[in-house]
């Protein structure tokens, strides 16, 4: 493997809390601690890429040099409402049911 970068970036617990909220994960105290260590190690591994000069390299987002694919805009049957709702944790037969979008903080 390429040599480790000396200036290995390290995540703080605050960084991990911020990322967890972006990722919508209510991580436990223990998970925040272990992920702070593990993500720092993994970021150290992936930071090896900074050794490479890629100034003149175009990003490759997709392995095939594919072009956009078009089709005729013809109406066709889609998933029935009942099928779409069948695995929903809560629904009223028409809509998915979720807690209030606006409201008090849910802190215990």
């Amino acid at each position, binding site marked *: 493997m390429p040599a480790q970068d000396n200036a290995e970036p390290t995540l703080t617990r605050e960084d991990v809390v911020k990322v967890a909220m972006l990722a919508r994960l209510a991580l436990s*105290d223990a998970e925040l601690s272990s992920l702070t260590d593990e993500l720092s190690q993994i970021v150290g591994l*992936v930071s090896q890429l900074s050794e490479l000069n890629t100034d003149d390299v175009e990003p490759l987002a997709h392995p095939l040099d594919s072009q956009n694919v078009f089709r005729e805009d013809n109406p066709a049957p889609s998933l029935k409402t009942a099928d779409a709702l069948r695995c929903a944790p809560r629904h009223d037969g028409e809509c998915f049911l979720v807690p209030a979008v606006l409201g008090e903080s849910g802190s215990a």
Partner: protein
Amino acid sequence: MTLTTRSAAELATALQQGETTSVECTTAFLDRIEATNPTINAFLSIDRDGALAKAASVDAARAQGKSLGPLAGLPVAVKDVLCTTDQKTTCASKMLKTFEPPYDADVVRRLREADAVILGKTNMDEFAMGGSNENSAYGLVRNPWDTDRAPGGSSGGSAAAVAADMAPLAIGSDTGGSIRQPAGLCGITGLKPTYGRVSRRGLIAFSSSLDQIGPMARSAKECAMLLQTIAGHDSGDSTSINTPVPDYLTDLEKPLQGLRIGRVAAHFSEGLDPEVAEHVEQTFATYEAAGATIHEVELPHAAYGVPTYYLIAPSEASSNLARYDGAHYGHRWDGTPSDDQGINTFDSPLVEMYCRSRAEGFGPEVKRRIMLGTYALSAGYYDAYYAKALRVRRLIRNDFTQAFEKVDLIGGPVSATPAFKLGEKTDDPIAMYLVDLYTVGANLAGIGGISFPCGFTQSKLPIGFQLQGPALSEPLLLQAAHQYQQTTDWHLQRTTAISS
């Protein structure tokens, strides 16, 4: 002769000639699963009734002389990452414990149309994230050659099922080596086709620019049979390749005279197990004896494959897995408050439901990768990590393009070691990620790769050999593996480590 020890090719002939029936054959495999699954845990669900009903209908159609599909009456195991309307699809996650998909994956549809008999759904690392099958929410899978060892992953259940004679054919998926590595560690043959050769519709998405479905079986010939059924364009997957599917069986018997195989010196550097190195070198010698020529080639950026992969795959995963929100399908938090000292303050009741549902539904490795991907895509880090990885991805693909100007295929090890002990790497994510060293390149470049057994260690653990080829080189990959299997019998050896 016991039906379960016969290859799919032999079973197909026996079925056509009336020596056995699909019901008899399917029953034999179901009984074998019932006897061995408590030990191996290769299957998450077994569809005895559905499989026997399909087998009976194939037998009836055959008796009436009706035309049948190419896999008529042959049992197949399907990785639980593919949607099936008649069986739960869990992706080995608590998140999808009760998920009953409203449609079949395109690959499942093709298997049904080919008259295959789907035995059940195989175990895997949760959301296909892992290299040992220890990340399943429904228990680890044991390697049939040594039940204290991992079968590899993430298609560990499919690989173990074939190795333990629980299924003659299996479907896997490969995002960074998830077909080839478990095939290697379990002593079977597995092909990762070119990106886009097989439709991903109904494949539960992990990393959409890397994921590809492929066949797993004892031999290359059986992989060719299975690929023939599952390959092809699908208007439901805009990344599926719209070129005709060749006949994968046509070229299998052609000799390898003049085939140019590349050897990468860096594959044999520190970290490669000596017994693996010895058998891989012997495999090159076998190819030379068969008329191929071996040429040194370089893949200068190969060492950057794992870091590149562990930025791109988690980034795409963090986006793909955002769909599990506790609202549409999947696990939902029941509202019980928590007094944990971790994240416990939320902007709204809706956000709390999202965050708690996801925290409960996902296992540790899935959370780790979502976190890593979210970090790599977040403001201030996007250019340094994700965009950087996309640039290195192009360098890695260019390496392969240049190598394939000199050689037809590139050979080498699949994994640096034979199957490792269960628990050996579970506390060390970096060690587990480095397991993917030899396999991630093909996914990043979108090319094909095949893994097949090339020997055993002194302690009777299988060793795999990998061939990689340019985009759409599946006929050549299958031919080269098949020709090797005509002069060797590694792929025919059966484990004695589990009772039958």
